[in-house]
């Protein structure tokens, strides 16, 4: 099972939470975190926010940074192929805009 726990926040309240999503990856495929977030946004929850509006998707713009299980990564260049539970969080909550998006 591929479980993704995504940090959710609301800029107008102090409340924060983690939402859990199960994404089924076909056998033998590896997906980037960006592709997994796209899958969650397009099929499960369109209210989730992650850096997307000018993402290059090929490791060039270096703006889709976030934390995967605590480690800073580029979402478009980090692959998932093993079953497990993965936690996605913003790099820093100081400059947080919403969910995984930082200014």
């Amino acid at each position: 099972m591929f479980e993704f726990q995504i940090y959710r926040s609301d800029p107008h309240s102090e409340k924060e939470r983690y939402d859990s999503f199960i994404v089924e990856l076909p056998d033998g495929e590896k997906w980037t975190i960006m592709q997994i977030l796209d899958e969650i946004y397009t099929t499960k929850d369109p209210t989730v926010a992650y850096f997307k509006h000018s993402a290059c998707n090929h490791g060039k713009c270096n703006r889709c940074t976030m934390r995967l299980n605590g480690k800073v990564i580029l979402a478009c260049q980090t692959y998932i192929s093993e079953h497990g539970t993965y936690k996605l969080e913003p790099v820093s909550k100081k400059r947080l805009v919403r969910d995984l998006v930082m200014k």
Partner: protein
Amino acid sequence: MENQNSTQLQISHHTTDVLVVGGGGAGVYAAVAAHKEGVHTAIVSSGKIGQSGNTIMVGGSLGADGKSAYDYGETKADPNFTIEEEFEEIVKQSFFLADQKMVEQFCHYAPACVQDLVETGRKINAQCDFFPPGGYFCNGTELGYTIRKFIKDRKDIDVHEDVRILDLIKVDNRVIGAIGLNIYTGEYSIFHAKSVILATGGYQPFSFKCTEASASNGDGMAIAYRAGAKLRDMEFLLFIPGTFLKPKHHRGNIFGYIFAVLANKYHLTDKEGNKIPIPEDLLHINATSEMSKLIMNYFAVQAISQGKGTPNGGVYMDFAGFKPEEIASGFEEVGKFFIPTKKGQKNSTDFYYSGENFEDMRQVALNGDRWEVNGCAEYSMGGIFVDEAMRSPIPGLYAAGEVTSGCFGAIRIADGLTEMLVQGRKAGEIAAEDIKNFEPIEIPEDFIQNIISNYEGIFGNTMGISPVDSRKTIEQIADIGFGLYREQNTMEKAIEDLEKFKLQIKSGFQVRAKHREYNMEVNEAINLQNLIICLEAGLKSALMRTESRGMHIRLDYPKVNHDNWLVSILASEQSGEMNLEKLAPNTFKFTPPTGSHENLMEYVKELESEFGNIGGVKNV
């Protein structure tokens, strides 16, 4: 579902002389040129300047003529490749559809613009390796940093990042500003300006995406169209062959084409593994010219359209029959151009292309296996109708770079990177010059309120189709009717479906996230309203053009018909409907041919017999 947040509407006002829209090479060169002319300049980008858009996606070439490069001191340059020769190649390889005045501007501005960029790039140690006849090889990421430096070095240019322009402000038939939305905050920005330069890049409506899909929604084209401008040549999209269909994590990467051109160790095969034959006389053109994009696509189409396509609708780049050492040396050849720049990649034994690890694909090739690839839209030849001074027919409105049309006609064989620089600089100079005696016009308050209330309708709309589903519908329409090859019945069906879809979304898109801050559905809804205009113009122009020309491959009209179709198609809005008209290109230097060619390859062969090797403007 998220809760509604009560946030007071924030609107900020900014005043400038020249407003440049777009944070890629065209926008930056326009802003710098306008600023040098002594006028106040602001640049607004929907992403970060030099870290967004398609400028950074470049595979690498930045070229001008060889003679100018030689005179500049590049000893490896080919002085025989003159401006005149470059001009002739671009015009003829554009299938004579290029506006020759625009090509002339391109060729004459190119050397200084390119040298300027290379010199600035070298200051920050960016890779700028010269290769003959007159080009430099650049890394997209470093190119982005280079153009960012241009703006950083000019502190009094106002910079607005992550703000997307929604619409132009036009009063008394003159563009006097624009309204923007800050993607992070949901606040509006009103730009009061004396003129506006659109430099927002191209469009691509398909599900298969290679370059930066999230920003290739034809924003500038649609914004200009809504303001009354005309769109030209929208049926011509440049499809780059060899783009990976599989595996999913590499999907959309153009490395296959890079390998095809630089290593040339592969065969094209169909789903049965049969070689797709490319005639001998076209094979060597394929290996040396930008025309290879058309040749590879043309022969792939012959297989795909006959039901011999791969499971994902493409073809294979097949390495069967090549020795591992041949493939390995091919990768070494490619590696000379693409040197890893990131920490952790430099010392790795894995193969990196740009920012991405391709060791897995290298192993596939070394094992004599195959890559599943197809043509993918990477560049729009079509766009806003402007003249060689980058003026649109609407006073106060200019455009530069990929968002324009006219420089490359039916297929681009010279560098898009060079286009953005030369047109950006020209647009900046002209826009600044044109406004020297122009007194600012006040923007009526009700005009601003009207535009804002339109967009506020998107934020608050709980009815209708979701932007996510709408994107899928639009992509499906484009895939079926507007792809790599075209036929009347599929285009008619696509137009019918698009018209139905336009009716469905009349009441707007459903937006479930209620936040003003980073609302992805709102952003997507705005993308789609722009993309729909571009797709409609492209589809209707493609249906109207009953011939094949450049990258417009029609199965039902394979002939290149010079007698009837040496014209551009212009799309404009009239009484709420899209109107199409024909326009003969400016051909002040070379008289266009008459008669017809049996098919696209016959035209390419004739070019070859006229030019010898037509690889003069080779790039990647």
